[in-house]
């Protein structure tokens, strides 16, 4: 496809314009940007990729095949919803960061070579961190630095992998790599894995997303990880390792989600769980599985965005987000409650909601390709996601016990953004053919047959029954103000301690050296004082006398050398 402008450019130009505007005009112009960008994609003509010559390399700035276009549409929708949601803000930092961030995500998915990808990959990190810092709390600033370090590091590995790949193959093309490519393949997979929040590499996400501003998290949850999913689908389809990584990702975060108190952190864990389904589908690598992975990414951006927005609305209105402090808000925020439940039903994959038509493609493919254990794990994760995202989020925020908090619905723009997402969730779930028509691979799939509808409903109702039973019998763990240790412990606690130990040793060594140096210095000073001090030989004569003595010495020396 050929576009009037590279898809990222309207966003970057928009960011420049928004930077000098203020107030309502600023918010209005920001919302116009994704609309213009959408039109730019819509009126694109079939054509050759757009290239740029730099040194000896051909950079492919825009390669718009079906896979890239699917994410292109998605990111425009996500940016639009996010900008409507944040249009009450009067914070230029956040508006500019959001537009730059969305533009970088578009740049990355349309990139046709690794250098272009790398540039946008780093821009993603650098632009999005301002959405975290804009919370302007010490906690958010610290989390932002950790986020930035890890994400920039991912880019550095990506570049290293790309250079090894260039050296081995002579090509920078961003296409299938696979692990057969050896070192380059592993490096690039690691870089993508950091951004996709693979197990043990995932804590930047659960650390930073809940610390961002109420509106910032909505953008964060849309772009970074989905760019990584896109890149995995492009470079590693059918890589068996990903099936197991995806299975692990779908499983372990749900345990954390059950005991986590910060409801936006619950959603962050749940996000890793959903990416697990996508990674698994990419690993399976059949047309059905890949379609499942990318369509689930599409749906996840919208329903996870909706859930994040509903929790953002709660945080915005009450200043609280911990399950232990919330409850009973259905009375003062009924519309938000209903919209949150639509998001919850979608992520839980209730029939007629969007998750239902995408998640099952991955599961069907897992069974078809002979991975029954993975299928069981994904089914466990499906029940679990309903449990923590589908029930826990709405229950502890809007129902449970009455926390005594009385507030009102959030501003109209927030409700509108959530409304658009809710309509999309139900629309895509009820009329899946629109989304299916955009999928990049050829595969026949019909989500609405009786067996699928009934078994899925059974699974969900009995998961809910388990919640009811555990709650009524007092077995359900209460929401407690707490932190749960995760892989981040290694770099937030162990490493600082280890570094602290090393530093202490160095300080001690430095003190010893310091004393030694001090002694040498004292001796040097004493030496000078002995010769030049009040009692010294050179103090007895005028400086001219010293000079004459020195000149005589030089003359004698030169005479000796001359004669020798």
């Amino acid at each position: 496809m050929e576009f009037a402008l590279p898809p990222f450019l309207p966003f970057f130009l928009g960011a420049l314009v928004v930077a000098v505007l203020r107030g309502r005009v600023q918010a209005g112009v920001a919302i116009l940007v994704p609309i213009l960008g959408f039109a730019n994609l819509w009126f694109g003509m079939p054509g050759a990729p757009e290239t740029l010559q730099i040194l000896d390399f051909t950079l492919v700035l825009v390669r718009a095949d079906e896979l890239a276009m699917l994410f292109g549409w998605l990111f425009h929708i996500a940016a639009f919803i996010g900008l409507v949601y944040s249009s009450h803000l009067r914070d230029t930092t956040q508006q500019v960061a959001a537009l730059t961030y969305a533009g970088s995500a578009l740049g990355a998915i349309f990139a046709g070579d690794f250098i272009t990808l790398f540039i946008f990959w780093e821009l993603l990190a650098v632009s999005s961190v301002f959405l975290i810092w804009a919370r302007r709390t010490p906690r958010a600033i610290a989390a932002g630095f950790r986020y930035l370090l890890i994400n920039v590091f991912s880019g550095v590995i990506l570049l290293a992998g790309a250079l090894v790949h260039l050296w081995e193959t002579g090509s920078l093309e961003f296409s299938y790599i696979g692990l057969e490519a050896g070192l380059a393949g592993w490096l690039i997979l690691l870089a993508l894995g950091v951004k996709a929040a693979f197990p043990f590499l995932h804590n930047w996400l659960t650390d930073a997303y809940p610390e961002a501003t109420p509106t910032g998290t909505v953008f964060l949850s849309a772009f970074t990880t989905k760019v990584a999913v896109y890149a995995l689908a492009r470079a590693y389809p059918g890589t068996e390792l990903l099936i197991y990584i995806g299975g692990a990702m779908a499983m372990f975060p749900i345990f954390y989600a059950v005991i986590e108190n910060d409801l936006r952190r619950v959603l962050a864990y749940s996000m890793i769980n959903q990416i697990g389904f996508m990674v698994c589908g990419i690993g399976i690598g059949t047309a059905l599985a890949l379609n499942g992975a990318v369509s689930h990414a599409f749906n996840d951006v919208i329903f996870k965005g909706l859930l994040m927005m509903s929790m953002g609305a709660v945080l915005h209105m009450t200043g609280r987000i911990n399950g232990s402090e919330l409850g009973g808000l259905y009375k003062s925020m009924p519309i938000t409650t209903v919209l949150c439940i639509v998001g919850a039903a979608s992520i839980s994959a209730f029939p007629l909601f969007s998750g239902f038509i995408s998640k099952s493609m991955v599961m069907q493919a897992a069974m078809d390709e002979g991975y029954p254990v993975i299928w069981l794990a994904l089914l466990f994760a499906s029940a679990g996601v309903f449990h923590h995202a589908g029930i826990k989020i709405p229950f502890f925020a809007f129902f449970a016990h009455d926390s005594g908090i009385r507030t009102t619905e959030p501003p109209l723009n927030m409700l509108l953004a959530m409304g658009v997402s809710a309509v999309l969730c139900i629309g895509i779930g009820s009329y899946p053919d629109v989304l299916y028509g955009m999928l990049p691979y050829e595969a026949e799939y019909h989500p609405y047959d009786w067996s699928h509808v009934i078994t899925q409903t059974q699974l969900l109702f009995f998961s809910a029954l388990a919640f009811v039973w555990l709650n009524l019998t007092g077995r359900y763990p209460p929401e407690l103000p707490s932190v749960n240790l995760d892989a981040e412990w290694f770099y937030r606690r162990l490493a600082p301690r280890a570094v602290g130990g090393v530093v202490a040793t160095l300080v001690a060594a430095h003190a010893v050296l310091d004393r030694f140096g001090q002694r040498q210095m004292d001796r040097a000073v004493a030496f000078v004082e002995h010769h030049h001090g009040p009692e010294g030989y050179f103090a007895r004569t005028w400086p001219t006398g010293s000079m004459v003595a020195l000149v005589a010495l030089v003359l004698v020396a030169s005479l000796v050398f001359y004669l020798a």
Partner: protein
Amino acid sequence: MAAPKDEKPGWFDDWGNVKKLLRIFYVVCGLLFLVDFLYHRHALTEWEGFYGFYPVYGFVACVVLVLVAKQMRKVLMRDEDYYERERDDD
């Protein structure tokens, strides 16, 4: 923030309402379980096609999930300011 005194109690504040809702929920669950015996399901495999597989799996999975997570708390749970406090100590 305390609730204002003259406020009408919410629908869910009445335990009787919740009980009614739960009773309907139990009936739906029962019917969903029985449906398995009434229609021919396209099973993916032999064991997955067994009567009541999905309801039982969903229920057991969630109970296991919650009980395991509860045990995890004993090992993993720390005070809310765990990481911040460390920084101050050092």
